[in-house]
């Protein structure tokens, strides 16, 4: 089992998130995180889905995502050069004596202090998962009161976009297929 990161473009319609989540539940795929947000295009949302799966399962997930009528495109960016980011807000218990120490630690991780009270700090950190894990580890002794993480978002590097077809089947759209069936056309990517 290994971590796979999928980037999926979906139609921005009611219930689409439910369809994707339901698919993972129904097929017993192990989902680690799922984020969803708007894209540069109206009517199109983008999901970053992190799953724990072996290679064969990852290909099945991809094919099953493509089966959903509202899913426009799926890219497995796991092994592609890509930028992967997680954001965390961490509320840490501090006292007047150790506040400076905590702020220095945050600084080392290039995290930002976004809220200060007499008893606590909120630290905002963005980065790859291991960097965030590292900060959490050094903060834990001070007492983490509360924490929230967004889950991963990912984008492949470079200017080119990725093939709109599931590579597991080495399949392509037939020649002369109606343009409306081609997500590449539909999305003008």
């Amino acid at each position, binding site marked *: 089992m290994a971590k796979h990161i999928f980037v999926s473009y979906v139609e921005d319609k009611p219930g689409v998130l439910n369809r994707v989540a339901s698919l993972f539940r129904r097929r017993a795929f192990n989902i680690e995180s799922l984020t969803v947000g708007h894209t540069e295009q109206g009517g199109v949302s983008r999901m970053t889905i992190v799953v724990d799966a072996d290679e064969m399962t990852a290909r099945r997930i991809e094919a099953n995502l493509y089966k959903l009528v509202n899913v426009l495109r799926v890219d497995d960016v796991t092994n592609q050069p890509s930028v992967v980011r997680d954001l965390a807000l961490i509320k840490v218990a501090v006292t007047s004596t150790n506040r400076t120490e905590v702020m220095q630690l945050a600084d080392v991780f290039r995290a930002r202090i976004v809220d200060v009270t007499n008893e606590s700090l909120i630290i905002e950190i963005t980065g790859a998962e291991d960097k965030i894990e590292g900060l959490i580890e050094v903060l834990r002794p001070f007492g983490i009161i509360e924490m929230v993480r967004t889950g991963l978002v990912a984008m492949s590097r470079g200017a080119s976009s990725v093939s709109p077809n599931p590579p597991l089947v080495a399949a392509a759209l037939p020649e002369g297929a109606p343009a409306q069936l081609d*997500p590449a056309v539909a999305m003008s990517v």
Partner: protein
Amino acid sequence: MKKTGAQIVWECLVREGVKTIFGYPGGAILPTYDAMLDYPIHHVLVRHEQGATHMADGYARASGKVGAAIATSGPGATNMVTGIATAMMDSSPIVCITGQVGSKAIGSDAFQETDVTGVTLPITKHNYLVTRAEDIARTIREAFYIAASGRPGPVLVDITKDAQQGTCDFDWDAAAPQLPGYRPNLRALPEEFQKALDLINNAKRPLILAGHGIMMSGARKQVLEFAERAQVPIAMTLLGLGAIPASHPLNLGMMGMHGEAWVNNAIQQADLLLAFGMRFDDRVTGNIKTYALNAKKIHIEIDPSEINKSVKVDVGIVGDLRETLEELLPGVKAADHSEWIDYINEMKGDSAVRDIQSLPDTGHLYAAHVINDIWHYTSGKAIVVSDVGQHQMWEAQYYKHDDERSLITSGGLGTMGFALPAAIGAKFACPDKEVWVVAGDGGFQMTMAELATIAQENLKINVAIINNGYLGMVRQWQEFFYEKRYAATPMLSPDFVKLAEAFDIKGMRVTKRSEVQAAVEEARAHPGTVVMDFRVEQEDSVFPMVPAGADLHAMIRRPKRDVMAETGADEGEWDLGATK
């Protein structure tokens, strides 16, 4: 042109070619029912909405066209769930239209409100909630397109009451489907074809696994051309029966849990499996770890998510089967596999002598005899709709289907109660064909209220109840695997003859093998529906059998002699309901 949402529903259904719709009215769908009277669509009033979905399913399977069903919100829609799941598992194209409470009331737990798109999400190919009259036309067009294209399946359209009542411009052409993410027609790349051809042209012991996809794709001609040229024997899945004529010399018969021994052994010994429009169901493979270890595998399948799902294949070709075979055929070389075919036929000879049909008449009535006689006297030309259980397997073994779409049965979901309503749908699809129901006493009782639908619609269907006073298949498992502890399997049934008569339908009872022929002929000659109660051996079992999860070659074979005679089972009074 201004129309109400309700009128638009029917305008679209008429344009989609719907002639018959199966349904049940209710509050939230009333505006649509009111508009129905002005359109040339025959509405069949069912007795339970589950029946409506099975009828639409049976219609679709018999005709190859999309079946349509309609019901109200809440309980009307939830009653459809079993039928929708059945259609989903067997890739049957149906469109279900359900009423929904007014859009303002959604989420308020209004009377007869259920989140139907939520409930049916995992058991539909796609579903819709429509809250505006303006969206009805495009949604219904998309629903029919999605249901019928690619790998077919059920689509549900849930329409709020205010959307049905609202008024808007109706423009059919402007309402063309807009489905940017839907790609039903993927095709494999050329290199995959070459890989497949290399395996095909070098195989010594090739075998075709023929599934339901052959019929749905219309690929019978291509499969036969392939098999005959390369001399490849063919094993059938349950839903594939009829896709290739049973009488074709290369057709070996059914594979799987109750498939014939020579077929399963051929699979285990083949060096190349060609899976044509089938999905390696667990009832077909047995223990996956020991399945066809000698064989390379080529899977031609329209649904990419099926490839490598349960059986890892060497070449997966995504695409419509007919188109794919057309592309493959020029590269398929003529071959001679007579050694392999002779070998399989030798195995077959051994099994054939165990066949119950070759036993003399010892006074026992076996389901196999009944089904064999029905096959014989209908010349194998009937559409047989079977239910789920022992009789379903005997039907598959003893009714030799030569024609496509001549066997309709719930394979994937195994839905008891499917047969009677599905047969009604099949009869509407093919009014000129002879339609038979083969059902067990258990399954028949699940949906027997649809006899009233048959009576109201004045249909001619021959219903053969294979009555053994048990939930036979479960009883068989209890006999084999649970020390004959018959928990909740003995079943008391009503007098089916009297029951039929209560619906003004002819009823008959048959208890002897010698009476079967006359009964079948009498039923066929009768102008109306006939319900036939065949009182068969109570503790007969389906052989051969691969126990669930066992290796495909580890079959429990047919006993060599008459089981009942050997065990000295009671020859006297048929014990109706061993519960006494």
